[in-house]
Every structure is written in structure tokens, then in C-alpha cells.
């Protein structure tokens, strides 16, 4: 039981950290530019597809992944310059609508470029092994790697946002955009840079999730909603909030999926219990969000000045 608990905790942490990578970019874009970017999930998907194709070409997952990051960042920057830049002064409804259009576009583009069937990213042999976290509990090395990369990224973002000049501008931008612009900072460039960074983070989440699931059209649509839930719970513009909320949601979702079927199994048949448990644990996330918003309408860690 303890072993199962530890294993599920690690799984939850892993999903939570993937969510964090996606949500971090989203919350930065949202916090600084006040832009609701539904197409963030599409960048997640495109990142995974790029990685899949590049892995196939180069024969190495590592090189493919490292090339996919700048490729997606570039795609994000192009999207920002062409389409999204005009939307900053508009209201949220326009953002939702325009980026909804972008989702449709990217999904179809992926279908045209990469085919309907989706792709798989095979892992190198060295990552297919297991690793004993605590005695008696072998855990897949790759999943462990995801946790490690996620934590490293969280640390890197913390350093970037809290300790560097760029991070200072990002924080200042989230608090008062006009003032930062008035002080002579090239806000446009800052926006574009942050958007590129967010895209790269989304791609990182996508390509790391890809070997576990598969790379497919629309893979970003559902996780995008989860990432939105994360940034709303965490407080818009707050990296720290996004981190805590993402891990919280990852744990709730995984624990629900792992333990609810057994609990329900006492009253329902196993197959039915599975169906109900899956729906219930998905619902738990939204109940959590509704609860947080009703108690704290601006999320757990709202950026100051908003």
C-alpha cells in the first residue's frame, strides 16, 4: 500500500510537472500581455510533432528534442508577430475567438503535414530501464527523468523571474504594463521574447509527454483546459502559483484515478467502477477550481497590482 502510494505520488508529480511546463508559458503570456492564448495547446502539439519528425530524421531523441525546442519557439514568435500582436488591446472575448481559430488552423495543419494517424516517439534503450527509487519499487527511468527536467525547469524559471534583469521586467510587466513601457523598455520585444519562451516550454512539455502517450492531432486541446485551470487556481501571472496548482492538480487527478476504482469497486462492478472513477477524478479537478475561485476569486497567488 505504501509502495503504491509512493508510486502514484511520483506519477502525480510527473503529470503535475508536465502541466506546470505548459502552464508556466501560459501564465507568463497571460500575466504580462493580458492575452488569453487558447492556442498554447497547439504549440504543445506542434512541439511534440516537431520532436517526432526530428527524432526520425536524426535517429536520436535527444537531438530531436533539442532541435524541436527552438523550432517551436520560432513558430510561436511567428504566430505572435503575425496574429496575436494585434489582439493585446482587445478584450478577452476577442482573444478567445481568435486563438480558437488558431487551434482549428494548427490542428488541420498538423493533419496535412504529419498525417491523421499520429506518430510515436521511440525512446532510446538507455531510457527504457527501471530505477529503484526506494527498495522494492522499480520506477521507469524516463518518468523519473520527466520529474527531474520539470524540477530543473521550475528552478530555472524561478531564477529567471526572480534573479535576472529580464525576470524583473517580466514581473514589472505583469504588475503594470504601461508603466514599464513608459520607462523606456521595448515592451513589444519583451512580449515576443516571453511568447517564444512560453512556446519552448509548451514544446518541452509536449515532447516529453509524447513517448508515454502518442503524438496526435488535438493532443493539446484537453491538456490546455487543465493548464488554464492551473493558472486560474494559481493566480494569473504567478509562476509560483502555477507550480503549486499544477502539482496539486496532478496529484488529485492521479490519486483519484488510482484509488477511486477500488473504493467504488465495493459498490459497483469493476468495469462500471472504472468508468465512474475516471469521470469522478476528472470532475474533482474542476470542483477544486470552482472551490478555490469561490473562496479566492483571483486565485491562490495573484500577481500584485491586478
Amino acid at each position: 500500500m505504501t509502495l503504491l502510494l509512493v508510486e502514484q505520488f511520483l506519477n502525480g508529480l510527473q503529470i503535475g510537472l508536465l502541466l506546470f511546463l505548459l502552464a508556466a508559458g501560459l501564465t507568463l503570456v497571460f500575466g504580462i500581455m493580458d492575452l488569453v492564448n487558447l492556442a498554447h495547446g497547439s504549440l504543445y502539439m506542434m512541439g511534440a510533432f516537431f520532436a517526432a519528425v526530428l527524432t526520425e530524421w536524426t535517429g536520436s531523441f535527444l537531438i530531436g528534442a533539442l532541435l524541436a525546442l527552438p523550432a517551436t519557439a520560432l513558430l510561436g514568435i511567428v504566430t505572435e508577430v503575425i496574429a496575436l500582436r494585434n489582439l493585446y488591446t482587445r478584450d478577452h472575448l476577442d482573444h478567445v475567438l481568435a486563438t480558437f481559430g488558431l487551434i482549428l488552423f494548427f490542428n488541420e495543419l498538423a493533419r496535412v503535414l504529419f498525417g491523421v494517424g499520429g506518430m510515436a516517439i521511440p525512446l532510446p534503450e538507455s531510457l527504457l530501464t527501471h530505477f529503484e527509487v526506494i527498495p522494492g519499487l522499480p520506477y521507469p527511468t524516463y518518468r523519473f527523468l520527466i520529474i527531474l527536467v520539470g524540477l530543473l525547469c521550475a528552478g530555472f524559471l524561478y531564477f529567471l523571474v526572480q534573479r535576472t534583469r529580464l525576470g524583473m521586467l517580466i514581473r514589472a510587466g505583469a504588475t503594470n504594463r504601461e508603466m514599464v513601457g513608459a520607462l523606456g523598455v521595448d515592451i513589444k520585444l519583451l512580449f515576443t521574447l516571453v511568447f517564444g519562451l512560453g512556446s519552448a516550454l509548451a514544446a518541452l512539455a509536449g515532447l516529453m509527454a509524447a513517448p508515454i502517450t502518442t503524438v496526435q492531432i488535438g493532443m493539446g486541446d484537453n491538456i490546455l483546459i487543465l493548464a488554464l485551470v492551473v493558472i486560474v487556481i494559481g493566480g494569473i501571472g504567478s509562476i509560483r502559483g502555477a507550480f503549486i496548482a499544477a502539482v496539486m492538480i496532478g496529484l488529485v487527478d492521479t490519486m483519484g484515478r488510482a484509488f477511486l476504482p477500488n473504493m467504488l469497486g465495493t459498490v459497483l462492478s469493476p468495469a462500471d467502477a472504472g468508468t465512474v472513477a475516471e469521470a469522478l477524478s476528472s470532475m474533482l479537478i474542476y470542483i477544486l477550481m470552482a472551490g478555490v475561485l469561490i473562496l479566492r476569486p483571483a486565485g491562490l497567488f495573484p500577481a500584485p497590482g491586478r
Partner: protein
Amino acid sequence: MSQLPLLRLKSPVTTLVGSALVILLGLVPVAATLLDDPFMLTLFTRVVIMAIAAVSLNLILGYGGMVSFGHAAYIGIGGYAVGILAHHGINEAWIQWPVALIGSGLAALLIGLLSLRTKGIFFIMLTLALAQLVYYLGNGAYAYGGDDGLTILQRSDFGGLIDLSDKETLFYLCWVLLVLTLWLTYRIVNARFGMVLQGAKSNDRRMATLGFPVFRYRLTAFVIAGTMCGLAGILTATYTDFISPAMMHWTRSGDLIVMVVLGGMGSLFGPLFGAVTFLLLEEILSSWTEYWKIVFGPILLLVVLFARGGIDGAMVRGAAGYALTGLVTLFLMYIVHYLWYDDWVPTAVVLTGAVMVITAIWYRQRKTGGRHG
């Protein structure tokens, strides 16, 4: 939120074109019989049903300024009420329909009570989250098919008065309900209640200072809209003989917002224009190529960038010519498509998408040239 003028339904052009469109829709069964094309009737039944849903969303989104991103939930609730009752052998419409309407109204009451306390993006996200709850409820309802959905074996029984299994009768029922929905919306937004609602959209603090309980007004509008959308749900379940969680997936809610904004928010006939344009474009583009969304996505983006106020806005701004040309082109496209069913190469479609993106760049440079956004 938005600075669009109130009560744009007074615009004669819109009213004229809108009424003409309603009458034209009423003539669809005649055309379908003349052309011997039953599919046309099926398509336009869907158009009319989605128009009802879009009109209901417009009441809160367009007139009330409440961006509900979970409106498809009520389509699901209305549909599931009919489907579940039919599954248990209760086919009487006088039980099914009231249960479905009251069910969606109650759901709207609950969702509204929780979400209307928040504003802006938090409202958008909370309505989305609560609609997702309903979606997963449908997913987990294993007794009613869960993820796979449920087939409705027998349509609602009006005691022999209305025969819903007849396609034309069903179409006319939907059409009459659309007209009723439009009429009801017209009465609501021009009544004192509607004025308060629109006032609260422009400035809710001022309305509160004037002594209006804004929250209660908004909640009432929210419940009315939810109930009307439940009606669309009943009709959807009836004409597809099928319910599934997919009918309340969040992208369906997105589609509804698209219809309302494309047609023109806060205009009586706007959502009707939007629903007709959306579904006909979908029909035409998807028959040309399976990759139709690669064109449709950029179209949406362009509508947001260029055509503020949607089709209705274009008419009101005096660009009636463009709007009419657009609508006429659309119908011509449909006719051409109908006469010469042909497969277009996807590359041509991709090119069209590229041209649109280039137009967007050109527009951006012309608009922002040298100025800091």
C-alpha cells in the same frame, strides 16, 4: 467591456435582412421537395437548431456582456433529459420537454450562482470549468452509454398531435421555435429588464448605484438563456436520435461563441446570421476538402481582426453591401457546390489559408505602421 452601441436591432437593414433570412429558412422544405434533396432538409434543421442555441447565448453574451464559455452544457442537459427518459420508456413529450427545460434552467441557476460572482477571465474560466463538470458527468454516466453515448429509439410523442418522425414536421417545429425564441429575445431586450441588463453590461457600478440588484438581473438572464439553450438540446437529441458527451465538449461551446460573434453580438438577428454562415461554410468547405478548418481558422482570426461587430456590425456601419455580398456569395457557393460536387486539392486550400495570413500581415503593417502597440 465593449463599446458597441446598444439596441442595434433598431437598424432597418439588419431587421430587413434578418426577417428575409427567417422567411427563406421557412421555405427550405419546399426547396428540398422541389430539388428532391432530403439532405438539404437535414442540414438546415441543424442550422435552425444551432441558431436557437446561438440566440440564447447572445442574450447573455451580447446583451449582458457575460462571456459564458460553457453554453454547450445546456445542449447536453436538454438532450440527456430527453435521452434518459426515452431510455426508461417515458416518451411523452409533455413529460420529457418540461423536465429537460427545467433541468437546464436549474443547471443554469447553479452555474450562474457560482460563476456570476466573478468577473472577466475568471468568469470565462469558471463557466468553462462547470461545463466540464457536466461533460464528465455525461462521460461517467455508464448506465447511459458513458463516453459512447446512447441511441434514442423513439422520438418524443406529442399524443399524435405532432409527428416528429416526419422530417418536414420536425423542421417546421424547429423553425417555429426559432421564431418564438427570436420574438422572446426581442421582447426581453426591449423591456425594462433588458434595459437593465444592457446597462449593467456598459457599467455595472452605475446600475448598482441606481439601485438595481445587478446580480439578480444577470442571474435571471443566465437562467433564461440556459433554458432556451436546453430547448436546442432537446431538438438536437430529437433530430440525431442520439446523445453523447461530445455534444457538450468545450469546443462546442467555442463554436457557439464563434457563431454569436461572427454574426454580431447584441443584435437580434446577429446569431442567426452567425449560425447560418458558420454551418454553411463548414458544409461547403468540408465538402471541398477534409482539411476545411485550415481555411476556417484564419477566417475566424480575420473576422476578429477586421470585422468588429460581425456581419451585423458590417451592415450597421453602412457596409451593408459587403455583408450582403458575403451572404449572397455564401448562398451561391452552396448552390455551386450543390450542382457540381467536386473535390478540390488540399493544396489549393492551403494556398487560400496562406493568402489570408498574408492579408493579415499587410493589415497589421498598415494599421500599426511605426506606432507602438
